[in-house]
């Protein structure tokens, strides 16, 4: 049974109260308040430098707030960070690193014991989540030999292997093709049945099809239901001119940003 099911749905999975954060002389986030409830799906959008990544790092506990607090199921991220499955951008990885898909995914099981040795249960769980994301036949393959979309799925499998209740993704659609993007959102839709999902992206139009709410981060955070998303609202949150582009592919007909 996951953590979300043992908790009252009215208790936020992620709760941010009066949060402010800056680097040296530059203020990044000011008076942020946000509550994400179990099984919610929130897409974080905003201009570059607006504080999306900082907000995400504060939620996963890589940064500590100067003012205010972040709570994961009522406790600080340092305490409850194992309830978070985190999916970084795959572009940050060294493409020459010799590592198999199975080894990458099993990293999600780290922290179970002092030495980091994996048990049979850890490997079983790894194969199970690889099957769930459709990568079981690729378990022994080199991670670098996978396509962009497959690598993103492997990283999601790693997050799932940890057994967390919250899935946080950092621009998972960057550098992958439209078909992979479509499959990725279908997978996220399935996972949202049992997990809370938070995703940073620039692809506002595509994401709005699959996410319940959209959080616009530009130093402050404003949250809207995705049904209220309009070109005007996107323009307002990005602070620039936009054109709505119609796509012919199956999953999107919403807008993308154009400078």
């Amino acid at each position, binding site marked *: 049974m996951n953590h979300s099911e043992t908790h009252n749905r009215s208790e936020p999975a992620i709760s941010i109260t009066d949060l402010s954060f800056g680097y040296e002389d530059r203020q990044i986030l000011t008076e942020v308040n946000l509550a994400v409830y179990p099984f919610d799906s929130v897409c974080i959008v905003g201009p570059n430098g607006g504080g999306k990544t900082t907000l995400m790092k504060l939620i996963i506990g890589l940064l500590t707030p100067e003012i205010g607090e972040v709570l994961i199921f009522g406790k600080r991220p340092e305490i409850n960070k194992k309830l978070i499955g985190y999916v970084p951008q795959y572009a940050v*990885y*060294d493409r*020459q*690193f*010799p590592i198999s898909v199975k080894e990458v995914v*099993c990293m999600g099981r780290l922290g179970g014991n002092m030495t980091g040795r994996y048990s049979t249960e850890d490997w079983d769980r790894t194969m199970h989540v690889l099957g769930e994301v459709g990568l079981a036949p690729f378990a022994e393959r080199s991670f670098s030999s996978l396509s962009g979309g497959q690598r993103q799925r492997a990283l999601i499998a790693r997050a799932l292997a940890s057994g967390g209740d919250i899935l946080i993704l950092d621009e998972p659609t960057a550098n992958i093709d439209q078909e992979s993007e479509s499959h990725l959102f279908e997978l996220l839709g399935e996972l949202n049945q049992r997990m809370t999902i938070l995703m940073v992206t620039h692809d506002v139009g595509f994401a709005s099809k699959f996410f319940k709410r959209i959080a616009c981060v530009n130093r402050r955070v404003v949250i809207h239901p995705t049904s209220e998303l309009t070109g005007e609202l996107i323009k307002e949150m990005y602070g620039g001119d936009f054109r709505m582009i119609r796509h012919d592919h199956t999953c999107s007909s919403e807008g993308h940003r154009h400078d």
Partner: protein
Amino acid sequence: MIEFLAALTDPDLPFVRYAVITGILASIPFGIIGTYVVVRRISYIAGAISHCILGGVGAGLYLQNAQGVSWFGPLHGAIVVALLAAVVLSLVSLFAKQREDSVIGALWAAGMGIGLLFLAKTPGYVDPMSYLFGNILLITQSDIYLVLLLDILVVGTIGIFYNTFLAICFDEEYAGLRGVHTHWFYLVLLCLTALTIVLLVRVVGIVMVIALLTLPAAIAGNFARSVRQMMVLAILLCTIFILAGLSTSYSLDLPSGPVIIVIAAAVYLLVALGMKFLRPRSI
């Protein structure tokens, strides 16, 4: 080659056997730690530690010969300074990452400078050449036990914590999120690197140590599908380079360190060229 094999069995030439045994035993930590140095891309850190070692060697010789501190020799000085450099570099990585390259450069040069100053003030003639360029033929029986001890330390530590080291090399941030004390493990990795380098300096010297630490692992990286495979291949390659270098240098009456490095570099170059022209191009 025949001369070298004859020398190996000659009871009057024990140093040749010591060199071969040391070469084989030393290849184990070189291959394992060299693999981490390559995949974690910390060869410049390894370079800084190796050059710092001259400071420790100089201090050890000075204390022993000028101050009469008989229990503290150049090897002790090298170990202390190498570990100290590892601690400094891991602290810099933790608290001042943006200044890491400056600190690496400073340690690199300052270690050499301090070492040369100590050597200048040490009474009698001290030849820095064997430290700078190494001489595996000067290895004694007690050195072999020291290498064996390092083998046990490196194989034991990496054997127990293999998955953790793999995770911090591949994705340190994620390992931290899973509750791994990444800074401590990074420090342990740098300390093992430092101890391996101290040992390696006896074989190829301070100046060329980075080459023998990284070239076998870099070659192995072209063929390995996992870090474990890369380590095994790097150990084999390192053994081959040391034995081939010893045999060639003995037959041609050349210094062993440079010959070992030239052979390793030539193989690296051939493999790099082979991979460039023979590997199918991705579209």
